């Protein structure tokens, strides 16, 4: 076993994840996952790397996450957990990669452009 850190990002959120030998407790910014995210689906989502690698009850996990919204933070946490797991057990790399858990989701907010109301939306057209 062992302890290690992983960093994950998604959209504009960042998560620093500390894995420690333990019994499966997870704390996110000092709170329980369900309390912090408020949605069971997101909690299941961050546990996915642990479920896939059968590590659910072997680590205590502490997460500090900043920036973005809760969905982005959950995605960042998931990536962070997966990366930390790979640091401790390099042999998990293939399984996790197959589930796309090690892929940084590259979709980002598209910038607003000058001359347009948003990234793509044009201002209302007025003939004269």
């Amino acid at each position, binding site marked *: 076993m062992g302890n290690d850190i992983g960093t994950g990002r998604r959209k504009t959120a960042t998560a620093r994840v500390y894995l420690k030998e333990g019994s499966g407790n997870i704390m996110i910014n000092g709170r329980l996952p369900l309390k912090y995210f408020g*949605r069971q*689906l997101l909690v299941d989502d961050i546990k996915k790397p642990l479920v896939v690698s059968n590590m659910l009850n072997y680590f205590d996990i502490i997460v500090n996450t900043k920036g973005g919204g809760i969905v982005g933070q959950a995605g960042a946490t998931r990536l962070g957990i997966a990366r930390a797991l790979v640091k401790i057990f390099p042999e998990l790399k293939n399984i996790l990669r197959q589930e796309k858990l090690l892929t940084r989701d590259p979709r980002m907010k598209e910038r607003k452009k000058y001359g347009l109301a948003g990234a793509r939306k044009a201002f209302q057209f007025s003939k004269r």
Partner: protein
Amino acid sequence: MPRRRRPEKRRIEPDPKYNSVLCTKFINSLMQRGKRSIAQHILYSAIDEVAKKASKDGYEVFEKAIANVKPILEVASKRVGGATYQVPVEVRSDRRRTLAIRWIINYAKNRPERTMVKKLAGELMDAYNNKGGSIKKKEDTFKMAEANKAYAHFK
């Protein structure tokens, strides 16, 4: 529109509860203003309610309901020499699913029940039993195609 080749279909993730692409599609169509978690809540609760009412597996009822609403034929307008004809055409499988989802959602919205969960549960139940607004829409579409059979050769 691309100039060279047909664009590739986007692949979407299966939904987290039933691991089904159909569910994701349904949720995405149901979603308004990017409120995914509300759309998820509506669909999942409706499926649970349907399961209770039919005392069967809710997801199977949902799948069957969609299958029942899928149209086989529809009509497309085609202009030939100044006149517009309603030409019956077969519906592609992707479009079948899209139409079925759209009809179920729209006819659910017009139902008398008070909440969207109840409306959707009612419409799914009706579609499962081959009745209700969305099934009627499918049959109307089919009748339109039948009535214009004479123009089938314009395709």
